[in-house]
């Protein structure tokens, strides 16, 4: 693995709050802190895995990073260039460099367009090519993701989930991006298809030097594909480290609980391993607990946890943990 020091993507203190209107007569509009101050960076050609349970803000983080949602505050740097304040027209060149693969292969393809039109859409928007070049490029992309030429004139509803996801990947690749946000690209697929799609994503990464932000709740898959892994809980990043380091030397109590929940295929080993059962539910992001977001369910919580929100601090080797009791 070639290690370069260049950061392709850098996110600094990114926040995304949604306004929640309670009703016509209630004045107290509240804010839902979907993403609350997260910072990370991704090196060129590498994959950052982002894990966490449903509703922890993984998807919002990915979408805000691409400016599909307007960030409340914070900085997004692409090769050092800030993106957070650009207008639509100024953002257009970056749309060519940053793409997204969506979670739901059924909802993310326009049902009225043929496969060729879907894949050709980004080519038209960026005026990349026309006429014969365009149809050649579409054919090339279709074959790149393992579909057939005669699929070009068919409609998305004629395909299976895995094939649809391939169409989505071809659309993302059409503009030759450098960075792709993969928003749970495999969670809607059958297990047997998941491996195919992940292998394809890895091949493409190797071939085109792509950089991924891989959002998932499948911890084993994230371990397999990622160079670095970040763990999110209730809108905040609680731990981030190299994949191997994180899976072997986890520090944050939440990461420990999360990883203990990964199913082990061997029943003998599974019996020996200790599963950590967390008490209670994830608190509502509308009404997060004071101090550390995890303190309500943490077995090791101390007084300091209820008072201040812990910041990410380095514990060596670029391993960062946000916890008062870890030092």
């Amino acid at each position, binding site marked *: 693995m070639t290690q370069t020091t260049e950061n392709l993507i850098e996110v600094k203190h990114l926040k995304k709050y949604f306004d929640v209107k309670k009703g016509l007569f209630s004045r107290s509009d509240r804010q839902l802190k979907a993403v609350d101050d997260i910072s990370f960076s991704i090196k060129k050609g590498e994959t950052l895995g982002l894990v966490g349970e449903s509703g922890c803000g993984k998807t919002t983080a990915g979408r805000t990073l691409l400016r599909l949602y307007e960030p409340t505050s914070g900085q997004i740097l692409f090769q050092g260039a800030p993106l957070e304040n650009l207008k639509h027209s100024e953002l257009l060149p970056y749309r060519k460099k940053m793409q997204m693969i969506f979670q*739901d292969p059924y*909802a993310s393809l*326009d049902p*009225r367009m043929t496969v060729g039109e879907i894949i050709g859409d980004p080519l038209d928007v960026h005026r990349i090519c026309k006429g014969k070049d365009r149809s050649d490029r579409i054919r090339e992309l279709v074959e790149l993701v393992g579909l*057939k030429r005669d699929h070009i004139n068919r409609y998305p509803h*004629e395909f299976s989930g895995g094939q649809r996801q391939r169409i989505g990947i071809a659309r993302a690749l059409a503009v030759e991006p450098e960075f792709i946000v993969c928003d749970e690209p495999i969670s809607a697929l059958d297990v047997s298809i998941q491996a195919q799609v992940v292998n394809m994503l890895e091949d493409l990464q190797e071939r085109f030097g792509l950089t991924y932000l891989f959002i998932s709740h499948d911890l084993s898959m994230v371990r397999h594909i990622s160079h670095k892994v970040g763990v999110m809980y209730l809108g905040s990043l609680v731990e981030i480290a190299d994949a191997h380091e994180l899976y072997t030397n986890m520090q944050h109590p939440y990461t420990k609980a999360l990883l203990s929940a990964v199913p082990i295929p061997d029943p003998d080993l599974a019996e020996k391993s200790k599963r950590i059962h967390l008490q209670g539910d994830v608190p509502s992001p509308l009404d997060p607990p004071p101090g550390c977001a995890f303190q309500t369910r943490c077995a090791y919580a101390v007084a300091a946890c209820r008072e201040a929100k812990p910041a990410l601090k380095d514990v060596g080797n670029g391993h960062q943990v946000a916890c008062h009791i870890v030092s």
Partner: protein
Amino acid sequence: MIHTARMKEREDGPFSTSAAGDLPDDLFEKLDESDRQDNEEITRPSKSYWQDAWARFRKDPLAMIGLCVIIVMAVAAIFGPIFSEYTYDGQNLENGNHPPSAEHWFGTDKFGRDIFVRTLYGARISLLIGFVAAAINMVIGIIYGGISGYFGGRVDMLLMRIVDIMIGVPDLLYIILVMMFLGNSIQSILIALCLTSWIGTARIVRSQVVTLKHQEYALAARAIGSSNLRILFKHLIPNSIGPIIVTVTFLVPSAIFSEAFLSFLGIGIQVPIASWGTLVNDAIPTLFTQPYQMLFPALAISITMFALNFIGDGLRDALDPRLKK
């Protein structure tokens, strides 16, 4: 190269229990390359949305009858008068109030004008007004409703309140005012009819766009870099075209009916041009002595209304199968 092999049926029957590992090699035969099955192949012929809709529409007998009636009527209205020796305004006072005969299929009016030719001319005017008004309404409705639904927030609030105010005033009031102001002509009837009747289309479009704009493919289009207008007109409107077309189909008969109604009141088409409304109006004084003079134009109106409504029903079922009972 993938080696595909198929097990021969053994002499003692296909349900042998021997484990796969023990099978001798001679039980396997090599498959022909041409025999290879492609599981990824889609066998169903590719059908576009419109082909599917047409297949469903064709199965609805009433809608098909309606469609045939409208086509026959349109062809007759366009070409019929050419083949007739009579014109819509040619008078023959000696031959007035003639009952239907081989000479005059629908009879003549008090000026001796052939009612058959006048009814065909009326069809021209009525169908023209119906379809043109519906087309204009569709365009205005799509643009207005699309912008209101897509941009939402204050824009939506403002545009929809304007619509609410417009709908609060009776249509007839605007229409009569416009007709008074612009005079009696086809253009002024079209303007009068298009002034408010796009509101229904706009509301349908708005509600469709509001539900569709949060779909992931709209977000995907944004990620690609599509502008707002491109997302709206290339993705959201085509996906809501079914309900839009259905609404517009029902606008055609309502426009024809409004025109007939205005002409009947005497503020529509000017004499001697005939529309179905003026023909019915002209026949009132002779309703008891020459009832056929009213019968034929009135029949034309009713048949057209039925036919268009059947087409509308058929389109609704064909374009939006979920609505089918």
